[in-house]
């Protein structure tokens, strides 16, 4: 990494100690460590997952970014790459996986389908984008995005991580954290639990 990423500017390091000493802030060193060890969830939905695998393989080598450890368990991962079409049948499971991931967590919507429904948007079993249910940090366009595009998206995630501070981070605040996202239900069609009252009143029939 560049020394300027870690060193806080404005502190002069004596020349004889250069290369052995860094003066930095807690935020910087903490974010530097976090951004260089993002563990993505091993979670493939559709076509984009194949490009995700290619990104992790020898040619594009995700390991350069400290992200080669894909974890199949949501409890051990902090980045969810939504790689493919989000269907109504699958979205309850995606929300459940998201809820199971520990904070701090990030979501990257990979490809047209995950970002907004893509070519299948008109389909009866397709959700128009994962952001209808789960907050998304970075969108990567493409159908499917090339590995280069995915790498660019992952670098954007790293940029975002580097811009956070411990003081304002939501997950270090006192008291209970933001409630979990309610899990959608399957009925005659997909039911958003946040709209149950509307459905019951017949406003949304």
């Amino acid at each position, binding site marked *: 990494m560049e020394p300027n990423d870690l060193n806080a500017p404005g502190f002069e390091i004596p020349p004889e100690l250069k290369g052995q000493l860094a003066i930095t802030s807690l935020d910087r060193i903490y974010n530097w460590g976090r951004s260089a060890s993002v563990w993505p969830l091993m979670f493939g939905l559709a076509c984009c997952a194949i490009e995700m695998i290619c990104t992790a393989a020898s040619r594009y080598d995700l390991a350069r970014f400290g992200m080669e450890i894909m974890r199949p368990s949501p409890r051990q991962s902090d980045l969810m790459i939504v790689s493919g079409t989000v269907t109504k049948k699958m979205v309850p499971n995606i929300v459940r996986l998201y809820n199971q991931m520990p904070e701090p967590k990030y979501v990257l919507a990979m490809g047209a389908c995950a970002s907004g429904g893509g070519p299948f948007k008109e389909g009866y079993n397709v959700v128009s984008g994962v952001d209808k249910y789960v907050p998304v940090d970075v969108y990567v366009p493409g159908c499917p995005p090339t590995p280069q595009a995915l790498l660019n998206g992952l670098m954007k995630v790293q940029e975002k991580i580097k811009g956070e501070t411990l003081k304002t981070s939501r997950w270090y605040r006192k008291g209970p954290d933001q409630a979990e996202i309610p899990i959608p239900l399957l009925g005659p069609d997909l039911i958003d639990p946040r709209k149950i009252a509307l459905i*019951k009143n017949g406003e949304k029939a």
Partner: protein
Amino acid sequence: MATPAPAQTIDLSARFPGILQPDTRPGYTGWIVDKSNLLEFASALKTELGYDYLSSLTGVDYLPEGKMEVVYQVYKTTGGPGVLFKVQVPRAEVVEVPSLMPVYPGVELQEREAWDMYGIKFTGHPDLRRILMWEGFAGYPLRKDWHEPYFEEEVKPFKSRWPEGKIVQAEGKNRFADNVTYPAGFDPENQTFKPEEALYDSLEKYQKAEIGLDTDHIIVNMGPQHPSTHGVFRVAVMLDGETVVNLKPVMGYLHRNHEKIGERNTYIMNMPYTDRLDYLASMSNNFGYALAVEKLMNVQPTERADYIRVMMAEMTRISNHLFLIGTLLNDLGAYFTPMLYALEERELILDIFEAVTGSRMMCNYFRFGGVARDLPEGTLQKVREIFFERLPRKIDELDRFLSENEIIRSRTVGQGVLTAEDAIKYSAAGPLARASGIPYDVRRAEPYSVYDRLEFDVCTRTHGDIYDRLMIRFDEIRQSIRIVQQVTKQIPEGPIVSMKPVYQVRVPAGEAYGRVEGPKGELGFYLISNGKPTPWRYHVRAPSFINLTAFGPMCVGQKLADAVAILGSIDIVLGEVDR
């Protein structure tokens, strides 16, 4: 496998008087069978005439005529043309057709799909549940009078997008922007149905005979989020200790409504959608769809286009099999290492695709009557370099590292056996059937394109276990390399499209079934045209979906860890399973 006289010499209507009549609608072929005689006809067709392989079953909704139809395609595993027969029933809320399960058990999942999509109730089917949508979903989506939330118009291009230039999207008309509507008086908190219960009931009800001690069975769910299911596939397994007692695949988590969307698209619009069916083998999907439409239009591709098509399809087969070898070993516990070697070679093929078509995976390369663009300069030289020098050596290296490995052999030899009889019974196709010793390959059974001019062997193995299914992929890669080598020598110069490229092709009314040997098995496209710019029916006979019929029976009696390896060796791609 009986080998009776070729089909052309048998007059079916003379053999079955009064039961069936020829389909006389213009452009249609095949026979219309009376509903009450269906079982009798099918079993005679199978046992007497030797049509032992039911390739495809699908429903069709003829809304204007007020009837529904079930279309069956049967073939002989010894090769030759098949028999197409149909059952017609008047359209109703729920229509009933006898199930063909007693004759062709391979229809199990396909009948469930027709029930799910069309509401055709197959009487006698032991486990008729929804398959792609969930239990409790309202309506039968592929019926022509059923409209989805984002419905705009019956056919594309939508007027809201063209030609006025102002785009109005369907969700803009709805203040909740999700367009979903519910029946009046629907109470989401007190739903009566339980989607999972039907699945667990069917595990209990249809398990095989008890084995030994009276122990409690437990039900384990694997997936849809599980690293060994290659996507969003789910299996519900009933276990006795660690042994599988019964297993049911659960799918639909990637059901992207290809068929509903495809029936609204114009013919050429469907080409990029076929890429996304089996996303590891987009060129093969293009091939099958192009063949079906060309059959309807009665167009022949040019010779150069034919050779380019075959070359691309065989490269796709190699890249697909390389991916399978990597993932199967990943499932067996070798983690990512074999995958890295396999993907290295696959990338070389993807580079060629990118150079020729502009895209690595979603090639969208075939057009009716040819291909989209000619090979760029230097491509053939690059292909020769890879396919004469590098790839054969690398495949031998991969083979040497893997096939004699002691751990692989002890995990796979003799496990997950599918006998030849079972493979035919469950309509298994492609490498899965050939590993069980059935030399059935559409490229030889019903040659299309220029395959009859090329030399290659139909590879078979004899045991039908996981090891054979792994090794047959190596055999097929070697044969595909042989084909590509011949193509680079034989390919002529000339035009690449035989007809003028037009946006809106004219397709005469009729039906066509185009099938190719995809990397995973027989890939078929069943199309019905009524002369309009969009197909009336667009059905995909997906090999990985139908190969899953044999998955449950193969796993019974095996350990749970072996079920993972068996699934890996079938080679499924969820985009094609769920469509």
